[in-house]
């Protein structure tokens, strides 16, 4: 299957004296986390299918520094940011797409004042663009009539007010989209943000991902759709805690689109 993936790097483009239309920022989770890697591959399949002229940084990519910044380590964040900006600017990158809302937020909002000015898109925004420009044609869908509930990632939703793109993309699947009681502006966090992903939670009476999973399960979904690798981890764990993993699948929007295209 791997031979099907076409993943050129910026260095390869540079060697040929060419420039891709868009840089795919894979992110640390998308590069190393086993579950998130599947999202990365699903998105690449979509890019390949739509004939997008893209590249990745590959081994030149490094953490955006987002999680260090949220943990309070401004030094480490700015070291990472300035290093990345130097690299991105040397490749004359203009447009970036990423599957990680945290990278999306950081690149979009926090890099500009350090000298990194790019048009940054979240993958749901980019997929929406592909669908509306007919580069991606979703005719048949395995998800017709399936009950799907979408969990808003904080850094896509509240942080950047993007609530429509993921819903529009999901809408193309002809599935039955149901909203959780807390959604959009009032969506509950999955519990991973602000560097919580990398530490044990403080003492309390419940884990946040469990509470959020309860929100999702109340809609009787066949699928919980996410659009963030960290939300993916948290919601998948939550569904396991609730012993619903046989009944309810947690899938990224990129995976839903890719599999509906039999990619």
């Amino acid at each position: 299957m791997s031979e099907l993936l076409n993943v050129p790097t910026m260095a390869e483009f540079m060697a040929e004296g060419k420039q891709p239309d868009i840089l795919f920022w894979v992110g640390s989770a998308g590069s190393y986390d086993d579950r998130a890697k599947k999202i990365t591959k699903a998105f690449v399949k979509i890019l390949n299918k739509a004939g997008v002229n893209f590249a990745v940084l590959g081994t030149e990519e490094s953490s955006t520094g987002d999680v260090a910044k949220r943990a309070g380590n401004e030094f480490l964040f700015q070291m990472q940011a300035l290093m990345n900006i130097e690299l991105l600017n040397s490749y004359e990158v203009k447009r970036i797409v990423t599957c990680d809302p945290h990278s999306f937020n950081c690149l979009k909002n926090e890099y500009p004042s350090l000298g990194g000015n790019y048009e940054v898109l979240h993958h749901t925004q980019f997929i929406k663009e592909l669908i509306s420009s007919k580069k991606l044609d979703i005719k048949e869908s395995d998800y017709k009539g399936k009950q799907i509930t979408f969990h808003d990632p904080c850094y896509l939703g509240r942080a950047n007010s993007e609530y429509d793109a993921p819903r529009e993309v999901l809408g193309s699947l002809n599935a039955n989209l149901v909203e959780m009681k807390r959604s959009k502006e009032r969506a509950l966090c999955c519990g991973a943000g602000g560097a919580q992903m990398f530490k044990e939670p403080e003492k309390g009476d419940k884990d946040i991902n469990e509470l959020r999973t309860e929100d999702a399960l109340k809609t009787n979904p066949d699928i919980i759709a996410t659009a963030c690798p960290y939300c993916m981890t948290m919601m998948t764990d939550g569904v396991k805690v609730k012993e619903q993993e046989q009944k309810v699948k947690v899938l990224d929007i990129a995976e839903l689109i890719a599999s509906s295209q039999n990619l």
Partner: protein
Amino acid sequence: MNYLPNIIFAIALIVGFGYFARNVKKLVRNIKLGQDVDVSDNRSQRWKNMINIALGQSKMVKRPVSGFLHVVVYIGFIIINIEVLEIIIDGLFGTHRIFSQVLPEAVYGFLIGSFEVLAFLVFVAVVVFWIRRNIIKIQRFWKSEMKGWPKNDGNFILYFEMVLMILFLVMNAADTTFQNMESGNVISQFISPLFSGMSPESLHIIERGAWWLHIVGILIFLNYLYFSKHLHILLAFPNTFYGRVNNKGQLNNLESVTKEVKMMMDPDADPFAAAPEGAEDETPAKFGASDVQDLTWVQLLNAYTCTECGRCTSECPANLTGKKLSPRKIMMDTRDRLEEVGKNIDVNNGEFKDDGKQLLGDYITNEEIWACTSCNACVEACPVSIDPLSIIIEMRRYLVMEQSAAPAELNNMMTNIENNGAPWPYNQMDRLNWKNE
């Protein structure tokens, strides 16, 4: 003529407004203890925010029940103040219902009629607020930070408003001339039968009594504001104006850090070079914030603006799952510490004397700071654009960059980023391995 009431009235006004002005000056001084921050950007957006969020109550009504009730009290509060203007003129010049002589009777009747309806609606709304707090016991009013003074303070405000509205209506009901006008006594006509059979003298005493208590009550209420959580009725306006205008996800980049990092990364920089003249003072005293003076004045304004409604806390994922963090408490602690620092300055002739305390540690614990998911639910929920998250992040910055006091797991994560450019301990050379897996 006897001028004694006029003089007493004038003195009451001067004392009431004077004491309030004195406290407002203190308030402004305390807010200015914060670090300077540039708020000259996005002027038009700022005006829009103030008009929509403060004046237009757009965020209040996101919760329809409390939002609607609040709009009633808010409109009542603003409009009934026109009546206060009449009271002040009457009080100073010894006139009685001066507007009724200036305005056509129908107009005056309409005005007072509207005030009466509003006063009645405000009374009902405030009673419902009281029931929500004390009988229904809505959770957000019973969190641990709401014990003692904050709980009483919230109720005092409600009692104040109830009493003021009753006094206004009683004043009208006992006013025989006004009742005889048969215009504008929309509500008070139902109260005046209570006084039937009383002598004109007793009625006059009741009317005067209610009139005096009403205006004195307003002056006391005005002065109570500074000591209560209720300053939002004034500060909501500047606070929504100076509040956040960029995407909620954007944290500021510390410029002092940028300078140092750029120098570290500059291959031509001479680490032993003497600092250029006059540059010594440029290094900030510390990174992040451990006390109120380290925060920006906008963050301190936020703290004074908070009215402890708890919408932030009721949306906070950490709080909802039983963690100690409550964004409302962060704001209350910031305000309480700022007040403490202000009092310290008062008693030490305008200089702050180190009291061995600080906001972080003595008020806010590390446990609270580390429980935050930075999800912005609190920021989104606040009806007056308060940003508790920004304070939490400043404290994390202090803990990490000044104290190296991050939880061990986070230190591991950060070491990984330093060593191999990812929060996990994987080799950077393996970043593209997924392609072939």
